[in-house]
């Protein structure tokens, strides 16, 4: 360090304060950009990993997703891993079967057998539904349990056993002229809970409903099928696997090969990913610009601040100060406050690496300026004077 180093700094505070402020601003800018990019990347990862991409089976025209009366093969296509590719991409499977019941508290009541409350207004808390259940594993039960409306539950006065006639409304009786009772049968239910409000729809576990359907129709069918994609990074693979079983929606609704289509609702995910990717790409452009600005600032401030120091450097050399010591002293003078500024910015924004990068580039700019200033020898200055 040069003798009276701090005295000299103290007596010309403006240039050092300016250098520190510029370093602080650039560090803060780069830290912000870096933090912002990390944040956007994290959001992108989060969006891809945790967005719910709903895949819904519809008729081939895409106009209907309930009352589809699909064969049991559709259910097997999303569950049998040994035979189909699609199950690998399925999570949170939602299947329903629609039935009609006639019982003590009403006739032609809608009975829906379901695997999950999701998407059902009365049952799904996300849609405002509120359910009181007496069985924890209602949706996976094979017992003929019922969820009724609060109103019906109150009218039952504590009675939980319900006898009913169950009808599969999708059985076309014209095909079974010799079986007038095809698709009709009796069943004993146990009330297992109620949903808030009046409402006429009844709900039962999917498996239990299918056992009844199998008994009264001789086969299993389902009326809606939806699921969430298990891996949002493999949606194209999912589409490919789905094409083994389902078609794509054809406006107009005619397909020689498929009766049903699978629609992957990834529009929200795509728009989110697109927006976040755009932000990341913009930041990727701004960061090098900020780094280039830092280098330029180091050069500019270095040149300005050493421009009037050439005589001081020459005088120091002629007083016997070694080149190394003079260089170290000049660099320290240029970088002491900017270093402090970068440390402050890095610590405040908890982003030390960008602050370090700013300091490194700023130092490089100053280094070039200081080397340039120190190249002027005292004798050259004297010659210029002469």
């Amino acid at each position, binding site marked *: 360090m040069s*003798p*009276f180093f701090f*005295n*000299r700094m103290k*007596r*010309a505070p403006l240039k050092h304060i300016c250098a520190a402020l510029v370093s602080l601003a650039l560090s803060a800018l780069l830290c912000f950009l870096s933090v912002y990019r990390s944040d956007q990347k994290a959001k992108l990862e989060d969006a891809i990993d945790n967005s719910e991409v709903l895949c819904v089976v519809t008729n081939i025209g895409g106009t209907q997703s309930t009352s589809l009366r699909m064969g049991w093969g559709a259910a097997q296509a999303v569950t049998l891993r040994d035979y189909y590719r699609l199950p690998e991409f399925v999570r949170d499977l939602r299947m329903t079967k629609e039935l009609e019941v006639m019982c003590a508290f009403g006739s032609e009541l809608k009975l829906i057998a379901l695997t999950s409350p999701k998407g059902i207004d009365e049952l799904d808390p996300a849609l405002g539904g509120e359910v009181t259940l007496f069985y924890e594993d209602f949706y996976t039960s094979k017992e003929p349990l019922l969820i009724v409306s609060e109103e019906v539950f109150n009218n039952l006065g504590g009675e939980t056993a319900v006898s009913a006639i169950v009808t599969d409304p999708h059985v076309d009786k014209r095909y079974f002229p010799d079986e007038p009772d095809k698709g009709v049968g009796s069943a004993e239910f146990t009330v297992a809970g109620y949903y808030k409000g009046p409402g006429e729809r009844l709900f039962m576990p999917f498996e239990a409903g299918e056992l009844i359907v199998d008994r009264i129709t001789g086969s299993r069918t389902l009326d809606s099928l939806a699921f969430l994609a298990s891996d949002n990074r493999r949606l194209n693979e999912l589409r490919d696997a789905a094409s083994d079983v389902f078609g794509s929606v054809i406006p107009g609704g005619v397909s020689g090969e498929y009766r049903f289509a699978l629609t992957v609702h990834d529009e929200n995910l795509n728009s989110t990913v697109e927006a976040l990717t755009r932000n990341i790409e913009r930041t990727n452009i701004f960061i090098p610009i900020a780094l280039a600005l830092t280098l330029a600032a180091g050069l500019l401030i270095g040149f300005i601040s050493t421009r009037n120091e050439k*005589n*001081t450097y*020459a*005088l*120091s*050399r*002629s*007083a*016997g*100060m*070694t*080149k190394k010591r003079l260089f170290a002293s000049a660099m320290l003078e240029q970088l002491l406050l900017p270093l402090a500024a970068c440390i402050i910015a890095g610590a405040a924004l908890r982003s030390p690496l960008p602050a370090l990068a700013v300091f490194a580039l700023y130092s490089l700019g100053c280094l070039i300026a200081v080397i340039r200033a120190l190249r002027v*020898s*005292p*004798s050259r*200055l*004297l*010659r210029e*004077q*002469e």
Partner: protein
Amino acid sequence: MEILTAKEVSFSYINRFQRVDALKGVSCGFETGKAYAIVGKSGSGKTTLLSLLAGLETPTEGEVLFEGRSLSALDRDEYRRDSAAVIYQSLNLFPLLTAEENVMFPLKLMKLEKDEAMRRARAALLSVGIGEDKFKRLPSRLSGGEQQRVAIARAVSAQSRIILADEPTGNLDITNGNQVVSILLRLAHEEGRCVIIVTHDLEIAAQTDEVFMMKDGVLERGLQV
């Protein structure tokens, strides 16, 4: 005995446009206890010779000897720090250091204790006529003559045996110029230092013990008007 000797010293440098042969086979010797003047026109090479004598440049040919040893074999930073002080026409002082700190600068480089450095600096300042009231002044608050005397005080305090002064009175009025010259002559004659003054002023040259004339890079002994 000669403390400083130039032996067949030549020096060339490249300026923006061409190669300049600033010195051509210059030989001369300087003794302690004497004041010397080097006179010559601008661009004649006298400042270049001063730089070579100060060890700020290396001769292209020939050598500069300090006490019989070639400067190129010595640590030239140490040589300037301990033995040879340079006084310029202007820009002599560190603008952000006080007069006292300017004088202490080489002493700090010599790693003297702060108290000792301050004692020597103050004594040197007083010896060149700078009063205590000006010790803490920055150069911008000193007159040209005072600045030059502070520069001399720096050479005095460092106890440099060789003082190389380049146009030390160039920016001064006659009174201040005379003061500075008399101090330099006193340092040579009373304190036994070797003082080499580069000057245009023939009156100053006439006060020295020996005069060299520099013309187109060639040094001749004696004054030829």
